């Protein structure tokens, strides 16, 4: 079976249910994991996972090229945060699902990405960089809210997020100098 994600998305556009199933098999744990981390409960994470994949099937044209699992992650994270917001009053943030046309994102080989390695890379970040990154990604709060909660100036928070992301990228593939 062909697990090349972009190839599978092309077949999903052509209403190939077998290709969709292969896509589901390859990435449902990734999607479920994000939803579970954001929501903290299994039932909600399953609902989000189902919603994400049904959106892929019903609107595959929303994928405009690039990295398929990264796109799935953005949808999952946004949907999970929608659920969080429905449970509480939360400032609105979202990951860009529709990317700039000119963007070229290098593939992160999710199928081969070692979750343990990512966790280790995150753990090795200084606390003052890891904390705002995790609050922003999984907590879905704005940088202003992060600054308010941590009592750190906004400009410092932004710089730490950037420094942390660059270190993380460097640790993952060595392709970016910090």
């Amino acid at each position: 079976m062909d697990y090349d994600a972009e190839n599978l998305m092309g077949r999903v556009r052509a209403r190939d249910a077998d290709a969709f199933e292969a896509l589901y098999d390859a990435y449902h744990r990734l999607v479920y994991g994000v939803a579970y981390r954001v929501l903290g409960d299994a039932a909600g994470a399953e609902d989000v996972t189902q919603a994400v994949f049904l959106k892929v099937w019903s609107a595959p044209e929303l994928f405009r090229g690039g990295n398929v699992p990264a796109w799935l992650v953005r949808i999952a994270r946004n949907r999970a945060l929608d659920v969080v917001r429905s449970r509480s009053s939360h400032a609105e943030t979202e990951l860009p699902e529709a990317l700039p046309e000119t963007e070229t994102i290098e593939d992160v080989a999710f199928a081969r990405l070692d979750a343990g390695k990512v966790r280790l890379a995150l753990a090795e970040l200084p606390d003052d960089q890891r904390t705002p990154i995790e609050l922003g990604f999984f907590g879905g709060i704005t940088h202003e809210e992060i600054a308010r909660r941590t009592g750190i100036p906004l400009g410092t928070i932004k710089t730490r997020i950037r420094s942390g992301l660059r270190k993380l990228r460097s640790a993952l593939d060595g392709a970016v100098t910090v």
Partner: protein
Amino acid sequence: MNDTHEQMLDDVAVYALGALPPAQAQQVRDHLQTCEACRNEYAALAPAVAAIAASAPAPEPSALLKGRVMRAVRATLPAPAPAAAPAPASSPARTNLSAWGPYLVAAACFALAVSLGLINLSLINQLKASKEYALQLEHQSKVVAHEALDDERVLADLTNASAKRYNVANGQIVRIGDRIYLAMHDMPALPHGRVYQAWTLPKGAKEMVPSPTFVPDSHGAALLALPVRAAATAAVAISIEPEGGSKEPTTKPLVVQALD
């Protein structure tokens, strides 16, 4: 590069993380259209953001989730072309399976509840959901029987009279063919940061190997298909581990069951 542009690069990083409010996110999007340096920065950081997702602890979703998704997908497909000649009403097993599907699932719900010797509302509710989906299918004649249901396959496995069942604390380990399921109920809720993790002992091996982590639903129920071949598995265990799972058990297993 001036300070103002350095600040914009910081904003690009926050945008990539998804932590900008909508109005500021739109400003960054507009800027990315015209600034190559910022586009390059975004392209460098976005995969790191996406990779953070892979760090999320990933307990195994219910074995029934895929069935729900695939059923909804296949229900949207056009009806297959009709057969050249109508089949006799009494003979086609596939048609009969389709028509009887809801009732088989309902029977399976009951049989499973009886076989487990429990009245577990949560698990039964999961199975009832399968019945509801199957009823929807009954009204969608365009869905053919061979597309049916992973759920039915799971339920058929769980209720198969020839399945080997091992009663363990809070549930059963069910072995049918080359498949192994955990059907658990009334499992205690765990503190934040802890999950249940399944383990399997391959035949001939001396140490357990990690299997998926899982989190029971709010009623303490969990249904899990283990990603191993039963024929190659000597034992199954369950322990409590940190989120994300462990490479070897770090707590005394709650369940250790040899498979004969």
